């Protein structure tokens, strides 16, 4: 039964697609493509209307039947009816990317990217979905013809789920960039500060529908950075202690860094910048708040850190985030 449904679905959606291929799409007809790339919203509605007529939907569920009719009008007026279900699902479930929009007719873009499409998809699903919708009526009354009438709508539903699935995977990837094993660790102060900042509604630190915020507050005490001695009489470099306060920005958009150290250097997963205060002398584990402290700034390019102190006793400092005492600062 299931295999029959599946093959029947493919046959039906293919026949619907063949009947409704837009002229612009026929040029690519020689390339094999899945049926869902050719089924249009109009063909979904026509199949549903045919199914509704076959089960006398208007008499058994007048409310849903009326909504189905009004949706057909709404899609026609918004000129979204000739969108493929793939494009419609993408537009209705998420903000489509620029390349997706460029593939569409330019004069239709403004209309089909409006938020109302999400509402229209939901309404269509409410008309169709079991246990109360048209799908159950068709399945109960004519299971053998289910694919004929409902196959295209099921394909649209699957496209909508697949579109959201893609967004979810991207969202988790962003969480991995910010929280995964390669991300910078937070010390207890940073943990508390970021926890507090996430709770301020008008600050962009809390996660949203796209995933985590790209921002993170930095407040650390660096003990493993080094600076050249300048005299080279004993040791060529000295460890320095500094306090750094600033912002880290995660580069969620760049997916080229996977694994390769050179790629990670060229496309770092995060940047950070802020102000620093350095201890009065170039030595490890000194207080950067004591008398004679020096002010400066830092920039992180991934885990590579470059910093400098200002004034007559200036220093250039580099680091990698290594700490003399891990897990504390």
């Amino acid at each position, binding site marked *: 039964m299931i295999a029959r449904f599946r093959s029947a679905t493919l046959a039906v959606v293919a026949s619907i697609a063949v009947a409704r291929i837009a002229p612009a799409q026929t040029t690519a007809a020689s390339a094999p493509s899945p049926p869902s790339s050719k089924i249009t919203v109009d063909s979904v509605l026509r199949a549903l209307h045919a199914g509704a007529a076959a089960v006398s939907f208007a008499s058994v569920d007048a409310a849903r039947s009326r909504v189905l009719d009004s949706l057909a009008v709404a899609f026609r007026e918004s000129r979204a009816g000739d969108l493929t279900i793939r494009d419609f699902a993408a537009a209705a479930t998420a903000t489509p990317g620029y390349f997706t929009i460029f593939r569409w007719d330019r004069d239709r873009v403004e209309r089909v990217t409006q938020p109302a499409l999400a509402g229209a998809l939901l309404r269509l699903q409410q008309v169709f979905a079991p246990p109360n*919708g048209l799908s159950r009526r068709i399945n109960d009354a004519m299971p053998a013809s289910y*694919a004929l009438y409902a196959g295209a709508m099921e394909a649209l539903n699957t496209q909508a*789920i697949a579109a959201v699935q893609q967004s979810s995977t991207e969202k988790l990837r962003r969480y991995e960039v910010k929280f995964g094993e390669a991300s910078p660790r937070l010390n207890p102060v940073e943990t508390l500060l970021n926890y507090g900042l996430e709770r301020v509604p008008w600050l962009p630190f809390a996660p949203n529908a796209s995933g985590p915020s790209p921002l993170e507050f930095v407040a650390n005490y660096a003990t493993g950075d080094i600076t050249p001695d300048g005299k080279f009489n004993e040791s060529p470099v000295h460890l320095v202690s500094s306090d750094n306060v600033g912002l880290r920005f995660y580069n969620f958009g760049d997916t080229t860094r996977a694994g390769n150290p050179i790629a990670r250097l060229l496309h770092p997963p995060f940047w950070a910048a802020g102000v620093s205060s350095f201890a009065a002398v170039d030595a490890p584990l000194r207080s950067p708040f004591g008398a004679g402290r020096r002010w400066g700034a830092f920039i992180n390019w991934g885990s590579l850190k470059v910093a400098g102190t200002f004034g007559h006793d200036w220093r250039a400092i580099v680091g990698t985030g290594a700490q003399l005492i891990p897990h504390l600062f």
Partner: protein
Amino acid sequence: MAIPDPQSIKWPADRAILLVHGVGNAKPGDYDPLIAQLAQILAGQQQKYAIYMYYYDYMNEWFSQKLQAPLAATKLVNALHAKLDATSLGNTIASFVGDVIWPVMSLDARDAIRTGLLRQLRQVLLDASAAGVPMPQRKISIICHSLGCFHVFEALHTAASDPAQQLGPSQGLTLENVIFMASPVQLIRSVAGAIRAAVPNADALACLAPTLAMPASDDGFGATLPSTRRTVSITGNLDPVGGYVFRAKQDWAYMNLPGQVSAIDQEEPFDMRESDLQSILQQALQTGAPPKITPQNPHDWSAYVARHANDLKQWLP
């Protein structure tokens, strides 16, 4: 490391079960024996099930490492391990405390784990579609254990209230069963409620809603559609995570959802037959060593499944 793909299975028929585990450092494959146990219980059913398992502990690990949990949560967990390591239940409770911190106290962890669970549920639907199972014929159930119950409870509320997830009852997903085993939902409600001011975005937690109930949504035409046709809550009378302490029900910890089918297992700390005990004592007499009696873990998921094998056959036809 890439994000693991959601588990995808070719449906053998028109039904599927999603298992959601609880606390612990579960890696893909760790629950294969449980899946085999369930498959064996359901082997005689009319239709075969596709059985999925949602693993998410790698995300707990992200947050634990990122926030340098050794300084806070892990110390707490280790202290609890030291105090409670007489039984495996002690380890369970200690791990539970560690794992529950993230979804309650961290907005990011809460969102990430829920996103992962909804992603797995969507994959179940995509597999159903790939297998050509029509929407009105799909029968999908969830069986969850321990902290997994909390994640399922929260995720289903999100699915029902947010159409953008494409998983709402009015969009065609009404589960056949949600079977909670040793659910800490009420316990978390009580504890998180007591520290509500410290819980970020507490209003978004379904377990802190004024009324604790399974989700439902309007079908758009005036009827209310529940997320599931049957809600089952099973716990043991020695399982504190499920709301019982030494056989006494704790109202502040026992989950009691409206309309749920409830089962309270009568557990024994030393669950053995008289003949087993006789054999142990005889062996002790022969060797001169003290009798070795290992306490049962009243929180054990496999034991819950075994005790309810017949119920599962009835609920999962």
